[in-house]
């Protein structure tokens, strides 16, 4: 393959990795929206907290002398998912449940408040600086060679793509096939009716936040390991981008979040590669506006039926 071809392949790899990260966070947004029709603005902060939990667990494990990579990874992911789920549950309990039944704007504001609170809380507890993580998984494959240019695919990148796909498939199956999933769908259709039919809607909504937070935990740990740096502000930009991805793909749709993330990731990569890094946000948000103009419900979104 020519040098240009190889660069193209490398940019696709870059874009897919970035897109998978966006997608993993976007799924959390889309789930909450799909079920209660509200945007959880504290989701980006939950993701940031999981990156910190990951950092603390990894440091703790290496202090205890446990350094075998798969064990470290499994313990870190489990701990991060457990602790972040507790945060997700608490956010719902504090910022959403007491406001159930109030106008939609009210919980939106309380979620933004939650987001600012969490960001400042981590900043005070952990300091505002960047904290670097030791590379846990390094290495990868190099292939192709044209005039000294080689394509590089790291193990981390493959892992991120696999984790996102697994999360998306697992979640689609859960919502489509399981009993609890059916309860979720019922709540999303008509919460009042579901309640009348004996579904504990409060529990279903809490579950939604917990699942969203657990997915954010996977994203937080993987991103922390991939980039190697965590700071209290990382949730804001990541959350914004993931939210964009969710809207792009059609908010409320799980495969849509995945597709939206990938489209956004690829757009950013290709703009950086063939135009200029300066324009990457201009182009991606321009694309968002264009898509919403022609498909107001996003790429895979279903038209919103006005509920009576």
């Amino acid at each position, binding site marked *: 393959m020519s*040098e*240009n071809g190889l*660069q193209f392949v*490398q*940019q696709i790899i*870059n*874009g897919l*990795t*970035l897109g998978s990260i966006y997608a993993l966070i976007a799924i959390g947004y889309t789930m909450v929206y799909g079920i209660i029709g509200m945007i959880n603005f504290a989701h980006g902060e939950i993701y940031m907290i999981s990156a910190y939990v990951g950092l603390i667990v990894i440091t703790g494990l290496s202090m205890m002398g446990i350094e075998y990579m798969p064990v470290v990874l499994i313990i870190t992911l489990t701990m991060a998912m457990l602790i972040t789920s507790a945060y997700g549950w608490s956010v719902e309990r504090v910022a959403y449940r007491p406001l159930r039944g109030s106008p939609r704007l009210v919980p939106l504001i309380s979620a933004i408040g939650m987001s600012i609170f969490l960001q400042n809380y981590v*900043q005070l507890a952990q*300091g*505002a*600086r*960047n904290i*670097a993580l030791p*590379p846990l998984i*390094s290495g*990868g494959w*190099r292939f192709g060679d044209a005039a*000294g*240019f*080689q394509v*590089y695919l*790291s193990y981390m990148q493959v892992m991120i793509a696999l984790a996102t796909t697994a999360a998306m498939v697992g979640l689609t199956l859960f919502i489509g096939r399981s009993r609890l999933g059916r309860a979720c769908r019922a709540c999303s259709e008509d919460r009042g009716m579901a309640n009348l039919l004996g579904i504990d809607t409060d529990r279903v909504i809490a579950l939604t936040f917990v699942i969203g937070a657990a997915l954010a935990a996977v994203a937080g740990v993987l*991103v922390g390991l991939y*980039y*190697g*740096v965590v*700071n209290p*502000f*990382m949730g804001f*930009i990541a959350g914004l981008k993931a939210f964009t991805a969710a809207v792009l793909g059609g908010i409320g749709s799980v495969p849509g979040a995945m597709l939206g993330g990938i489209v956004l990731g690829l757009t*950013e*990569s*290709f*703009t*950086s*590669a063939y135009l*200029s*890094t*300066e324009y*990457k*946000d201009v182009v991606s948000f321009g694309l968002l506006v264009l898509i919403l103009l022609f498909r107001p419900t996003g790429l895979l979104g279903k038209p919103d039926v006005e509920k009576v």
Partner: protein
Amino acid sequence: MKISRNSLLGAVVTAAIVGGSGLAQAADTIRIGVVGPVTGPVAQYGEMQMIGAKMAVEQINAAGGVNGKQIEAVVMDDVCEPKQAVAVAQKIVNDGVQYVVGHLCSGSTQPAAEIYEDEGILMITPASTSPAITEQGYKMIFRTIGLDSQQGPVAGRYIAETVKPERMAVLHDKQQYGQGIATAVRDTVEGMGVNVVLFEGINSGQTDFSALITKMKKEKVDFVYYGGYHPELGLILRQSAEQGFDAGFMGPEGVGNKDISAIAGAASEGLLVSLPADFAADPNNAELVKAFEARNEDPSGPFVMPSYAAVQIIADTITATGSEDPAELAEAMRATTYETPIGAVAFDEKGDLKEFQFVIFDWHQDGSKTAVQ
């Protein structure tokens, strides 16, 4: 209801104003505002500024203060955000503080300087290097650090004469400081015949640079200059090493921080950094360095000694003139040469240093550095 609420608000505001001015009149000490990022992503630089300024304040006080009065450092946090900097500057005005050592980031110094100039407050920044800050013909604004327009050419000449890259890339973070210095470097190297194939801005706070690195790899870039701060360059170095992009890198003092080694690890070895000369290594400062070390503080950060010098200059001028009026001090400062830990200091009409030396350092992965020039 409405009327009473308004009058309540009025009472609170009045109380706040009275309270504020009450504070301002309690001036048996000389208060110097020390403003920089105490929190936020570049708080390390703020720390350098704080330890330098506090050391000067304590040593001056221990030696009897200024005209019998003690100096008090009033530390304030602008997080390196222009918005916050304006709020802090207004607080300084309200509190009646008349002298400021700060701010640190050029982007926040610029809007704050305008307020200080209008309110007649004497400001000396120990860290902001953007030439634009002193270009408005201000009377009250000074600095104890060199300019990007001096640092850029030093870095550019070193690149063109010693590194001699074939295909060079110049990146920056689109902010006043980073873009300013990157532009100065590009203009210098292009003037000396270096082929700059890429001049591009990134977003500060960005974490993924893979697309940009792939592009530079494909363009066969063999040397990269980055204008900005260490968090972004650290990630660029780390991701470059991973992708197998092995160009040389260089940056200004904004990247010369031990954290860059924490972020980039082995990839930070061999990074070139232009910094103010290492004042801590100057034998004239041996005693001062010992005082810092006795307190377990690191005197080698680029802004420690300039901050010390800024406080000292204010104190010296008050002693020499016997006046505490900032405008009179500003006038006297332009006519005086000071002996400080950063050498002999003299200001020009604009408030810039007449002379300031930058040195190129070779960075090591353990966070230490050696001078190469």
